[in-house]
Structures are given as C-alpha cells and as structure tokens.
C-alpha cells in the first residue's frame, strides 16, 4: 500500500494494521526516515518536499510491486510525507512483512534505497542563507544501483 500525505504517521498503528490477522508473518522490518539537521553544509531549518500528485503514487506503487515480485512478502506499506518538515520530523515510512526475516530486510532496504534516490520528489532546503533546491546525489544513486539486475 502507498500513501503520500502531509500529515505525520503513527508507526506502531501502521505496523499493527498491516499484519493484523496474518499469523504466517514472522518478521516485520520498518524504516523510518527522519529529517536531518546537517546533511553536508550549513544546518537546515526545514525542508520542503514538492511532488507531482498522481505520478508520484504511480511511481511508488510500481516499485512496491517490484519488491513483491522479488521477495516473498506478505504485506508492505510506503508512506511518504510532503510539504514542509523540520529536523527530527518523520519523513518516510517503509514496512515490509514476511514469513522470513531475510526477505523482509532485503525488500525494505531495496525500497528505501529507491525512495532515497528515485522517489519523485523535489527537495528545497531552508538554511540561514535562504532556500536551495537540492540536486540529485550520486552516493545515493550508487546505493540504488546495488539492486539492479545484472
């Protein structure tokens, strides 16, 4: 399941709702991304995530479907926030549930690597010097490349 929203999310409630009633699930891996205060240069006061409603959800649904093809997942959820977020705030939630913990770990990391580099968002960083649109990062792209089929 996929959601893009301005509101915060409740990690415990999302996990509970996702696995409820499924007693085959043995492991649930969750990634919560937080807004960092320092990402290289000056401390940031806030970021603003802009996206393309409709296209974003299609992109997220597609990568989620790919994860289900590659790993035996029982359930998954991606929630990505948009709008203005300050350091320490939750920005993204990825949950993968499987009978087998290795599948849940790998699928979760695969989704997070993709989201961090290829999720259709544009990020504006606010610092004391004003706002700056972030450019695509090469290190993150390399992390996502790990998952490319040979």
């Amino acid at each position, binding site marked *: 399941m996929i959601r893009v929203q301005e509101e915060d999310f409740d990690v415990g409630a999302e996990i509970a709702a996702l696995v409820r009633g499924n007693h085959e699930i043995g492991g649930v891996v969750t990634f919560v*991304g937080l807004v960092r205060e320092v990402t290289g240069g000056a401390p940031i006061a806030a970021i603003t*995530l*802009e*996206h*393309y409603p*409709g*296209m974003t959800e*299609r992109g997220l649904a597609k990568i989620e479907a790919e994860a289900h093809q590659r790993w035996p997942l029982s359930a998954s959820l991606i929630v*990505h926030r948009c709008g203005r977020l300050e350091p320490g705030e939750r*920005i*993204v939630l990825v949950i993968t549930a499987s009978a087998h913990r290795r599948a849940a770990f790998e699928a979760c990391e695969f989704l997070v690597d993709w*989201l*961090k*580099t*290829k*999720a*259709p*968002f*544009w*990020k*504006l960083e606010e610092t004391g010097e004003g706002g700056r*649109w*972030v*450019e*695509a*990062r090469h290190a*993150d792209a390399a992390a996502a490349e790990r998952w490319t089929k040979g």
Partner: protein
Amino acid sequence: MKILYFAWLRTKIGAGSEEVTPPAEIEDVGGLIDWLKGRGGGYAEALDDLSLVRVAVNQEHVGLDHPVKAGDEVALFPPVTGG
C-alpha cells in the same frame, strides 16, 4: 493542453501550471519547449539547459521526440532528488 512546472522550474517560470494552446505545428515535446522558450524571461531561463529538465506526458516519462497534442498533461521538472 495543461503544462505543469515543479521545483525550480516552477519558481523561475513563476507558475505551477497553466493552460496553453500551442500552434498546430507543435507536434512533440521538443517543439513545445522551444515554443515556451520563445516567450523569454523566466521560460528562457528555466529551459536554457535541457540536460536539467525532465518531461512527463500524461504522467509517463518521455523524451523530447514524444508527441504532444491538445488535451495532454505535460509536466516539466528537474531530476528528482528522492525522499
């Protein structure tokens, strides 16, 4: 035809979206962009370096040779930076 602009393309052009009616001879994305650049100002500045511009037509990523027609939703935006 609806055109959407995101991120710094939006701020340079000064609009998030607009309805346009390009002349009939505009048949593909490249032609549309050239026509927009012809407006000068923020358009010319935002669309100066096309290596920094990505395009979607009806929410599918496309290249400059992809056809455009009345009723399409065309989006122009920088490479995504991830979440």
